[in-house]
Structures are given as C-alpha cells and as structure tokens.
C-alpha cells in the first residue's frame, strides 16, 4: 500500500474522531455536568433538561455516535480500498 494514501486515510479518520469526540464531550461533560444548572431551568415534561442529559440524553447520543462512526468508517474504508 502506498504511503501517502495511507496517510490521507489516517488524516480523515482523525478528523472524524475529533468531531465525534467533541460531541461526546459536549453532551456528557458539557450538558450533563458543566452547564447542568443553566439547562435545569428549561423543563421538558417532568424532566429538567440538564438532569435529563446526565441520566438519559447523553447515553442515547453515545449510542448514536458509535453507529455514525461505523457508517463513516465503512465508507472511508471503501473510498481508500482498505476494507478487510
């Protein structure tokens, strides 16, 4: 395999990781911890929003993030023809 193709593949992979991990950080550490009081002033049904992110929302987003990652990487693998 050629070196520069490998490097391009790796760079795109790192870009995806940065974006997905930013969202990962935002919904848990951001919404669930650092901004929890501000978000708790918003109520959806019986849930205070910050509390909901800490005990429900962040987990749903985690699941979605991994499935998005799977999809992105599968198409990246085919684009660079490095699938196994």
């Amino acid at each position: 395999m050629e070196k520069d193709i490998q490097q391009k593949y790796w760079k795109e992979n790192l870009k995806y990781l940065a974006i997905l991990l930013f969202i990962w950080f935002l919904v848990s550490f951001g919404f669930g911890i650092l901004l929890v009081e501000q978000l708790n002033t918003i109520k959806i049904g019986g849930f205070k929003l910050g509390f909901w992110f800490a005990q429900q929302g962040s987990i749903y987003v985690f699941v979605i993030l991994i499935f998005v990652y799977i999809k992105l990487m599968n198409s990246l693998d085919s684009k660079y023809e490095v699938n196994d």
Partner: protein
Amino acid sequence: MDIQTWTWLLVVSTFSLYIGIAIWSRASSTGEFYVAGKGVHPIANGLATAADWMSAASFISMAGIISFSGYDGSVYLMGWTGGYVLLALLLAPYLRKFGKFTVPDFIGDRYYSDKARIVAVFCALIVSFTYVAGQMQGVGIVFSRFLEVDITTGVIIGMVIVLFYAVLGGMKGITYTQVAQYCVLIFAFMVPAIFISMQMTGIPIPQLGFGSAGADGIYLLDKLDGLHSALGFHEYTSGSKSKVDVFFITAALMVGTAGLPHVIVRFFTVKKVSDARKSAGWALLFIAILYTTAPAIAIFARINLIETVSNRSYSDMPDWFNKWETTGLITFNDKNNDGIIQYVADKETNELQVNRDIMVLANPEIAKLPNWVIALVAAGGLAAALSTAAGLLLVISSSVSHDIIKKIINPQISDKGELLAARLSAVVGVCIAGYFGIHPPGFVAAVVALAFGLAAASFFPAIVLGIFYKRMNKEGAIAGMVVGIVLMLFYMVKFKFGIFDGGKNAVDSLKPDWWFGISPEGFGTVAMFVNFAVAIIVSNFTSPPPKEVQDLVDNIRIPYGAGNATH
C-alpha cells in the same frame, strides 16, 4: 406457586441452559479458548460484551446507588456508557487488527519489551481479581436471600457452574453462555420496571415514565424533590458532590471502562476490523437498555419507599419489610419510642437504615408484583454475576498461560500444553475468587470502585499512545504506566485507607486535603494525565522505537489484511 418454588424453577432452568451451551461449544485449541476462534458474529459479540460488562453491581446495586444519591448517581450512568465511545473510536478496531490474544500481548509487542508485558500482566491480574471477588460475593448474596441457602453454599454452586463452562469452553463457551445470560438478565431487569412504570404513571416505557406525572397529576421528579426537602435530604435532581469531583469521577469511570482487559479482549473475538466497530455499537445499545432504565427504577423505588415507610406506624409495615429486616438489609431503631418510622436525613433522629441493594432486589415486592416477577430478579442477578465472573476468569487464565508461561517462561510449549495450562489456571482462578467471595476482605468494595482508576492510570494511555503516537517508545510507555499506577495507588492508600494518617477513621477528616478537591474515585483521571505527560516527555528524550515497530503501528491503522489470530 410461591416465590421459593418459582425461584428454584427459574434458577435451575437457566443454569441447565448455560451447561447445555457449554457442552455444545467446547474449545479444542488455544485460539478457541482465548478468542473463540475469532469467528463471533458482531451482534452476538455485542450481546456477550453487554453481559460481560454488566456485573452484579450494575444489576443489583446501581439503581439503588442512584436512588439514594440522585443527580450524583449520574457519574455511573455517563461513566459506564461513555467509555464505550472511547473503546469504539480509539481502541477496539486497532486492537482487533493487531490480532493477538490478550492486552499484555499488545503492550509487550508494541513496546518490544518483556518488562512492559510483565507490568501489563500485573495490572491485568490486580484489576481482574478485585473485580471477580465481588461477583462471587454477588452470587452468594442472591442465593442466600432468595433461596435461603447460606452464602458459602451459594458461592460454591456458582463456582461449579462457572468452572464448568469457563474451563470446558474457554472464550467460545463463555461467549455463547453470555449471549443467553444477557437475555435472562435484561428480561429480569425490564419486566419489573415496565410493571412499576405502568402502575405509577400508566406509561409502559420506564424511560418516559419517570418524566411523567403520577395519578395525582404531579410530575414524579417534582414530587420526589418535594419529599426530599421535607425530610431534609438534598434535592434529588441536584446532588451534593462538587462539580469538579463529578467531572473527574465521570472521566475516570469512562476511561477506566475503556481500559478494562476483560472488556477489551471481547473485541478480539470477531472476524474483521469493521466487525469490531460494529460489535462496540451493538454492545452499547444493549447496555443502554439497562442503563437508561436504572434511573427510572431508582425514582420509582425511592418514591415507593418513602411513601410506604415515612411517618407510618411500624406495626402496619407490609410483609416485605419484616422479611428484609431479618436479612439485616433494613434496620429500624425506634429512637423516640413512638412506634412510628422517622426516615429523615438528620443522623441523630433518623430511625431507618436501608441497604441500597434492596431497591432492585425488593422492588417487585414493594410494588406488589406477581411471584414469578420476584423470582425473575434472582435469576437475573445470577446471570449478571456469572457472566462477568467468567469473562474475568478468562483474562486471569490467559494472563497466566499465555502471557507468562507461553511468552516468557516456556516459548516452546505445545498448543495442547498451553491449552491445559489455560484450563488449570482457570481452575485455580475460580478457587481463589471463590475464597474471596466467601471471606470478602473489607477492602473489596472500595477497591472495585478504584479498579477503574487503576485501569485509567495504567492501560488506557499506553494503548492509545501505542496506536496514535508512532514516536512512543518503550522507555516512555513503561515510565508512564509505572508513574501513573504508583501515583494512583498512593492517592488511594492515603485518602481512601488513611494509611499515613492513622487508618480508616481518619479518612473523613482528610477530605479538605484532597488535591484540587478530587476524591480518590476521580483521581484516576489525574493519574491518567500524568501518565500521558510522563510517557511523552520521556520518549522524546530517548531513542525512537525500531523500524519494525513503526511499521507495526502503520499496519494496525489500516483495516486491510486482518487475518486470523496468530501467536
């Protein structure tokens, strides 16, 4: 049928199922014993990983912990699920591409050093043994509470079952029993939750139910906040830990989860790199079903408990109250002799002590559910404990037979000999775990929580740097791991055990001295950052890794060509 008969029926039939699967999936080579021949379907692996991961603590204790700590309990919910994102994005696909059998395998090869391998084996054994003791204890507790056999007999029954399928089937047997165990445990967890959600809110989905209103039209969470402040507890939805501490504990649990060897090794069992990613996704989905239900159970149980006991006459208490009183999990001490239960936050006047495990174990009884649902909880708790114990035993046996015997002591050992060694070390592992399950050392509960800190401080940086930083060499990695784990151990013995300041009794008075206000549970995050920093600095002052190691790193970054496992 009464509860006892139902419980025996369910326990015996699930155990026969596990044994049947074990006989059907015997392992005939080390490849099958360590990694199930690398042929597990991603969804099956997701199910197995979920059962492997969700332990007696997740099933029996977590909802109760949340129930008593409210918002503070979020650290477990976010920490023990968010780690899977790190696992899927940063570790699983690359470790699968690497294609060996164990975590110390990766550390030893990537850092071209048997010293690094030994450090990794040592860390894996410490983490796994503390964890497995807790599982065997969980088995004993479930047996003694639901079936009225004593804890020792309960642990021995559990040992025999695990021994049977772990020794016979290795990873192959464990994988397929774990699939069955996931189904049992999730059914057992969800059925009472759905029943109770229906009862309290009329909504069958607990995740939505706990954000809705009860029959009186008041939102459950508002009602609970009100009950809490009336009794002097902190507001349920706000918590009492400092923000800094919540942040660091969550991070330590996430990173620790991603660094636990018995979880990582599950991703070695699939056929392809893309399958490793997929199974991480499925695993988290299956885990999320339980983890998003737990906070709902926590709230239903908390409201039910307060409404049943608070300011009620002791003589009017229902059957379950007296039953759990005899096990010592509920204790009532009528301090002012008025015959009425005062359940309040103030320690001086509070008359009721409730063990947190009751929130799951007695929840169906408190909600007056049918007998078969109550019995189901016992079968579920056993499935959760046994599945995790088996996964941990496999890490212990492969560390001994593969990482120590095959890789260091006797590289000439035949595949048959290694397989025998693996089986024997599994037997020894079960016996040690059983011993600790029967005679739990007082520090087990404390250490299990800190196992995550230890995993975060040792494995996680070494593996991530090994993949994402080609320049990382053995000097850097070893220095980082050693400094990280020593720092974590130091903080643990100082602030958790009070060893330098007069023992256990001094622990509370040391709280103001916590560095940056971070508790020992959250300190793994700090130790992890120190590990990263030390590793990077040391490696930049020492020679770069050899060419073939740099090529190895290039190779694991690309999915192409992930073949079968090799020695």
